[in-house]
């Protein structure tokens, strides 16, 4: 059904890229949209934003960090294995048009989500400044691809093991000071705290900013309301109203809190999974 055609480890077995056969989705998907997948019959449904699509090959590419049982299970699958379910494309595409100078900021695996958007803005004729960051050099992904997709690329690592020593917000601030009002829009995608702080920086400069939110979801069609986020005065559903929203209106703290709702169960599931894996290796 949904065959994994290739598997690439981007960072020490913790960040993995899979190219998956899903022709219907590949034919329809646009930058910014996501899919929901289920690894196997007992699996949960998790949303992942597509890093790439290839209509000719009928494939989509997802890039994810191993953070819990489902991503661990996904990473344990080999090329030629099948996923139980992949549904999409879901959510609204990124509105991409020619505006002038655009700054694209990505952190961690958010860079994978940012890549097609960056590429889209450049292809639309914008001058694209990209800033990407990771905790350390080993966790930094898609530098080459981002370089090709942008006009200027700046790289940061939290520990200084590569590129600028510090956070993406530092470079973002520098660039905004340098270019000022020429910057028409910023797109920031990554961990919630990173998006929150990027948003603070761009707000000071009055730059319209978009963030892509990774809320917990079930159906992804607006039916359950699990992914609701506070945006300004309104409650929005990340799955159908998003996943991208005006960064200056998003309640990031509320989103952070809701992302922890199943922490206890996630740990329980991961512990049981790791125990089972180590047992079966010993046997």
């Amino acid at each position, binding site marked *: 059904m949904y065959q994994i055609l290739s598997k690439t480890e981007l960072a020490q077995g913790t960040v993995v890229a899979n190219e998956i056969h899903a022709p219907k989705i590949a034919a329809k998907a646009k930058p910014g949209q996501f899919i929901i997948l289920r690894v196997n019959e007992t699996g949960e449904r998790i949303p992942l934003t597509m890093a790439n699509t290839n209509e000719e090959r009928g494939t989509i590419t997802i890039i994810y960090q191993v953070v819990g049982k489902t991503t661990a299970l996904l990473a344990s699958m080999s090329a030629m294995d099948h996923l139980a379910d992949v549904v999409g*494309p879901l959510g609204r595409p990124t509105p991409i048009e020619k505006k002038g100078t655009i700054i694209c900021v990505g952190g961690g695996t958010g860079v994978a989500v940012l890549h097609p958007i960056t590429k889209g803005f450049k292809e639309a004729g914008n001058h694209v400044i990209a800033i990407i960051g990771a905790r350390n050099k080993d966790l930094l992904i898609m530098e080459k691809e981002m370089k090709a997709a942008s006009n200027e690329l700046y790289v940061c690592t939290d520990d200084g093991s590569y590129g600028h020593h510090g956070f993406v917000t530092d470079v973002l601030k520098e660039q905004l000071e340098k270019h000022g009002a020429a910057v028409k829009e910023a797109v920031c995608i990554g961990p919630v705290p990173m998006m929150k702080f990027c948003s603070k920086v761009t707000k000071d400069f009055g730059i319209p900013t978009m963030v892509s939110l990774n809320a917990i979801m079930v159906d992804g069609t607006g039916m359950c309301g699990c992914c609701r986020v506070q945006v300004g005065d309104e409650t929005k559903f990340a799955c159908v109203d998003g996943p991208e929203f005006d960064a200056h209106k998003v309640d990031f703290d509320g989103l952070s809190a809701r992302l922890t709702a199943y922490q206890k169960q996630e740990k329980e599931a991961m512990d049981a999974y790791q125990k089972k894996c180590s047992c079966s290796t010993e046997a």
Partner: protein
Amino acid sequence: MKKKKEKTPRQAMPEQAAEVRRRNFDEVPLGFPEELAMLEASRCLSCKKPACVEGCPVSVDIPAFINKVKEGDFTGAILKIWEKNSFPAVCGRVCPQENQCEGNCIVGKKDKPVAIGSLERFVADWARNQNDIPMPPIEKKTGKKVAVVGSGPGGLTVAGDLIRKGHEVTVFEAFHKPGGVLVYGIPEFRLPKAIVAHECNFMEKMGVKFETNVVVGQTITVDELLNDEGYDAVYIGVGAGLPRFLNIPGENLMGVYSANEYLTRSNLMKAYRFPEYDTPLVTGEHVCVFGGGNVAMDALRTSMRMGSDDVKCIYRRSRDELPARGEEIHHAEQEGIEFFFLHSPLRFIGDENGWVKAVELQEMQLGEPDDSGRRRPEPIPGSVKTVDCDLAIIAVGAGANPLVTSTTDGLDTNKWGYIVANEETGKTKKGQVWAGGDIVTGAATVILAAGAGRGAADSIHEYLTWGW
């Protein structure tokens, strides 16, 4: 003879004891054994003008099938039911028979009505366990293609009717399993999922194709189905599909669910079997469910089964206005659900980590009747109380999900976003497109959706045969 019949009391279906079932997900009523079914069938008067049939949205020939049961010809009985109803095992369980067939039963004028629902269920369950039941006849292939959007009760009815008339039918489902609300909404203890799977397999055997993981409006649009994929007709039966919230402060706290989410996690994703299944669900010590319909009853009884001892139904009107089926309310009470009538939530109160810990309730009293004919609940000034609540489930109805309507050209919707369609034929303003069920009427019942599907299937068949 007649006198003797009147003396047989209505037979009660054996069921799991409340104190046992409140902690398991097994089905509550256990079904009729053969002798009991035949005895109950003997209560039917075989009326010449059967009022029960008039009460059935899909016009099952009730006296005819009951007659077969009376004679012990269960094969004959199921074939009779199948003429009009493609999934009797489902309808026998979840139809509000008291307002439909049984509500019209002549026996019911003086005595308790014939247990039509239980008999329908008995026949369907009996048939499921046989290997040699002949399939319903399927007419010669017409070469026409029909797309059914949504695999709930309406979509399944359309698919079942049209496949028998010789058309090619593909059903598109957004989730990974077919069945729609029968799978994600109605809990296992009311409708075992194996039964829904069996009914869908039966459709497949008749030739219906199911395509899961297709979100019409996203993966493909209605216009693409008609223009690019060569479908001759499309039926939209996607359900309401938009959860309604209370719009009160604190609603985005953790531990506050829509009933749609809570039930989907537990039913479709089998969160009640976590960690065997990976989908988690919050369990609460103090559960409050807001609303008084069948969905609220399902959420209440599910949270009780998840291990809570304090489960409250918070409803702003009084007992008389509860919209849920009597049987559901009765079962909920037996299982220890506490009813808080005439209480309306004002706000949720959270703890320091963003979890709900309490809810503030306004006490209400009933005033004059409102537009719905029910007495309007009004706040009693100064009567506000706070109750513990670490799991809140909101079951106050659903609205129209715009995913399909907003991506289809020329489809008329009303001011609430529901599709405008002819009540009997399901015809919409857009040529070759029919619609029915909750996306037309707003949230209703399984059998009303099936009834709408029946009307639309007839109209689609007419169009495919004769054109406009």
